[in-house]
């Protein structure tokens, strides 16, 4: 069959290309531009090659931030995913209370990030915050501005409060799609509650949980606003995660070159880990299909 050659159709793609160029390609190339040059202002640039990358790869500060970041993501995934599933399993399936639960669950997701930070910043204060004050009255020495452990606990609890709903809502959607006959068959087969979870609910939720884990990983790995508002990365550097460190370097110290190199590596790390996550989980899925 002869194809009609009509290249005019390419023009129709042009608006998208322009949009993507301005929203993604141009900013990214700007960063690349900074990452291989040095500047002292006045728009004077000096070629630096891969020096900044080399410097960043050997920077203890960056490795420490990456370490904190990895620990933070691991902790919140380990808490939010099981907790989200648990919440979803215990939510009413239909009726008035199901709607109430859904709205309540969605609320934290609708609050602007810096407001979340502010809420917890005040909530945890020993002098006026409900949490801090109550703990102090109970005789528990808690001070997130001075104690690194307390700061971590607060940041983690804040993230769990903010984002567990997302996992719960996704898991809930997965659960809702399971036909009633599966539960009936399980009863007939005398399956235990655990078996129902293990062989019916979990496999049926697999798809949405994959999305939940990916989203939560990416978001937590890039977290900036809430901990910045809450602790400002302190005490010391204890809650300085990658983004916070990056912003300090780029805007605080105005080290644009290293910060740009740092950004690119940060981007690649997230891309790589997400890709590995996705591939592993999709392959697991396929292997099981055999």
């Amino acid at each position, binding site marked *: 069959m002869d194809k009609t050659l009509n290249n005019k159709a390419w023009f129709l793609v042009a608006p998208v290309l322009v949009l993507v160029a301005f929203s993604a390609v141009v900013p990214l190339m700007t960063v690349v531009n900074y990452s291989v040059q040095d500047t002292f202002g006045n728009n004077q640039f000096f070629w630096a090659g891969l020096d900044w990358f080399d410097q960043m790869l050997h920077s203890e500060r960056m490795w420490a931030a990456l370490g904190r970041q990895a620990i933070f993501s691991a902790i919140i995934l380990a808490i939010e995913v099981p907790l989200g599933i648990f919440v979803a399993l215990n939510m009413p399936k239909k009726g008035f209370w199901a709607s109430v639960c859904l709205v309540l669950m969605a609320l934290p997701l609708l609050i602007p990030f810096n407001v979340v930070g502010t809420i917890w910043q005040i909530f945890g204060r020993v002098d006026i915050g409900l949490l801090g004050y109550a703990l102090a009255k109970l005789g528990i020495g808690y001070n997130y501005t001075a104690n690194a452990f307390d700061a971590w606990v607060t940041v983690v609890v804040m993230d769990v409060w903010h984002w567990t709903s997302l996992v719960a809502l996704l898991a809930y959607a997965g659960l809702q799609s399971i*036909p009633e*006959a*599966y539960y*009936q*068959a399980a*009863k*007939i*087969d*005398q*399956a*235990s509650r655990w*078996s129902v979870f293990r*062989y*019916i609910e*979990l*496999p*049926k939720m697999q798809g949405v949980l994959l999305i939940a884990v990916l989203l939560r990983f990416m978001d937590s790995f890039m977290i900036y606003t809430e901990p910045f508002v809450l602790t400002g990365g302190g005490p010391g550097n204890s809650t300085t995660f990658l983004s916070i460190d990056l912003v300090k370097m780029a805007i605080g110290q105005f080290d644009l070159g290293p910060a740009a190199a740092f950004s690119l590596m940060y981007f690649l790390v997230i891309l790589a880990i997400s890709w590995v996550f996705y591939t592993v989980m999709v392959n697991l899925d396929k292997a*099981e*299909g*055999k």
Partner: protein
Amino acid sequence: MAQITLKNLAHSYDPTPRSEADYALKEMDHIWEDGGAYALLGASGCGKSTLLNIISGLLRPSHGRVLFGETDVTDAPTAARNIAQVFQFPVVYDTMTVRENLAFPLRNRKMDPGYIKARVDQIAAMIGLEAELSRKARGLTADAKQKISLGRGMVREDVNAILFDEPLTVIDPHMKFELRTQLKSLHREFGHTMIYVTHDQTEALTFADKVVVMHDGRVVQMGTPEELFERPAHSFVGYFIGSPGMNFFEAEIAGAHAIVNGVEVPLGATHGPVPGRTRIGIRPEFCVLDRAGGLPFQIRRIEDVGRHRIIRGEVMGTEVNITVPEGTEIAADATRILFAPEKINVYADDWRVAPLGEEM
């Protein structure tokens, strides 16, 4: 194994039913004999599945009792009833292999592993899935999945009853026949009570010894396929069983005659006074065309359906079908219709009225 008795059973999904229309199941007394092969036949939404779920304990009836043998199990959970049930759409445990799927009900009951293996192999051979035993269930076709569901339903030997809720809906027509035959042979071999819900009369009539017909939340008749055909207890049975269904005429009953539109139609038996809206019903198989006598008949069209032909027409505004054997000549001047008198049933308000002298 035990006889299953439904005593004054009724069910409403509405917690405060006000009228009879609020009941999915109207009050009924019914006995399922131990070891019987029953088909539960009825149109969609007539309460078949509700009844099944009550027997298996997935649903608690709002009224009445369910007895297994002498034991009242109305409040017993499904697990305690020892019932197997197969659903309309395949239910398989995706992440398990076919073997694990089939073994699941036995494993949950802590059976001996050696026994489980032997039994699973036996069932797999019966449903034709031996080659797929170590495959994961999720990659299989809908057909194969439903066979697994059937297999899981049949894997336990000690069940009180096996309930099938339209299990062959998703199966290919040729497989349907094969599986039905296997179910039947399984029934002969193990003698489980089997209740098979369907809205397909062929399925019901080939599977079951006794067919239970439900209509609008009621059991309207239970009988052998022959009884349902010869003496439908309710006009619904007349319509629903047989293809095409029974012909009905508004009639007045006077002893051994019925009067249809002023014409006297002889009946095979004598009836006492019949109250209510009275009709006579006659199967298309028992009508013949004639040149004189009987009722006037107008042919509308003739359908050839293989082994026989269906003549569709009208008797004074009422649609009537006649079934004649293949190759029967249909004369152009055959404008009258005759009925075999002994095959005519009399109905009052949709329920069959037994003639005088007939044993109920």
